[in-house]
């Protein structure tokens, strides 16, 4: 078998991918982002059976296979349950461009929520990050109704 054994350069065909999508958000995301845009509140939904408050909000609790119920305000404060600092330029899936490095990222369990959510941490130094640290969501001034309305989570002292 050959393994890059050919000396001459073989043809490579460049194909550029440009596809456009319009994702349907559905009623739950729609309400979540509308609420965040208008009031700055972070809302989860509660499963009537297991009573977990789920983020992202969604129509069905997968554990119980029943429709989720009431909306519950969660956060904006929360606890870091997992953390990292990213040193590798990852592509931001919404812009297609790499994000500046390094940056902190965490799983944050917002007060009142069951699910922990992925987000950016203000603190990027791994020496200053630890599990159990308290953080608070920092929102943008001009909110557009998307997850980017939460800029990052800042470290707080309590």
């Amino acid at each position, binding site marked *: 078998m050959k393994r890059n054994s050919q000396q001459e350069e073989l043809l490579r*065909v460049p*194909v550029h*991918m440009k*596809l*456009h*999508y*319009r*994702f*349907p*958000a*559905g*009623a*739950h*995301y729609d309400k979540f982002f509308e609420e965040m845009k208008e009031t700055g509140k972070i809302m989860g939904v509660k499963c009537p059976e297991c009573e977990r408050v789920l983020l992202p909000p*969604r*129509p*069905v*609790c*997968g*554990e119980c*296979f029943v429709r989720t119920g009431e909306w519950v305000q969660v956060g904006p404060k929360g606890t870091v349950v997992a953390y990292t600092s990213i040193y590798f330029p990852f592509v931001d899936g919404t812009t297609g461009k790499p994000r500046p490095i390094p940056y902190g990222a965490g799983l944050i369990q917002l007060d009142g929520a069951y699910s922990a959510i992925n987000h950016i941490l203000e603190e990027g130094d791994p020496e200053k990050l630890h599990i159990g640290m308290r953080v608070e969501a920092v929102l943008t001034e001009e909110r557009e109704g998307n997850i980017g309305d939460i800029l990052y989570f800042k470290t707080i002292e309590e």
Partner: protein
Amino acid sequence: MNPHVAVIGVSQTRFEADKGYEAIIETVFKVVREAMRDAGINRDDLDSIVTSSVDLWDGRTASNQMLTDVVGSIMKPESRVAGDGLGAVFQGMMAILAGASEITLVVSQCRGSMGDHYEISNWVFDPIYQQTLGLDYLSAGALQANHYMKQFGISQKECARVVVKNLRDAQNNPYAQVAREATVAEVMDSPMWAYPIKEMDAAPISDGACAIILASQEEGKALSKNPVWILGAGSCLDSHYLGDRDLTGGDALIRASEKAYAMAGIRDPLKELDVAEVSAAFSYQELLWTELMGFCGRGEGAKILQEGVTSMGGVLPVNPSGGMIAGNPVTVAGLTRLVEAVLQVRGEGEARQVRGARRALAHGTTGCCGQGQYVMIVGN
């Protein structure tokens, strides 16, 4: 095939041009719950789940992940066939026959409204030769159409009759996206997209989902008073390069249907089948596929349509639902054909019921110009 696999529950959404009013998971949850209700089971009864979807049409990676909550697959086996929903039924059927599952949910969903269907279909073609030529499902379909029509002397008007029949019959189908009385002249006057395919010759772009529940022979008998059985199943893949394939020869569909007939003990499909639901993305394909599946001789598809053989009330009605001309979410189409076939055999086809239907054929395709072909025969 012995033992047999049963279809004990079916459900479909209404096909629409844009279901932007609800999330994909909402649509899928509804069809899954309805299929379970139809089968008289709940989530805990499910042993395994097979989904069918394609990442590029969904615009996200490993796109079946998004369905986890709504197909009830938490801590259960889930697998995805990245292709037509009827292919996913093969996977579900084999899991049952292998003894790995007693009750299996098969789900397919697609949102044609999210992206550009024909642009995405360009990414199905090999990147070195055919993709860079700009081929897509439409232009490739037009090549096949011309080849077929030239070979057998079929006119555009004869193809247009397929559209007229299907749009008319779709009026009996509450799930249809497009349904109305149309004329051959209207089809002929619709804008030319890729000669000889005109706008009305092509299936619409659709949003929708479909679900079925399969069961082992034992569970099928235990759970259902009138289970519908999969009597035969065949599938086959043809060449990718259009120039390698006899575009009208249809080797893959001939083999797939012959295998399904052999398993079901069918010698003369025209006589022994009561109804057929066929996946034709363009009008000419319904004529071509009916020939290749042996409903008539080669080149006679238009003739038997003209004679009313494949119309409602004919010897073998084809697409009482309106077929893909009535609604065409990618990957969902083949599973929809099976749902319709099952409803016919159950006698639950309502206004589109073929009287006394006992044996029905469901057909699905994947890739361009029917590269991948699936045929299933169901009966009671």
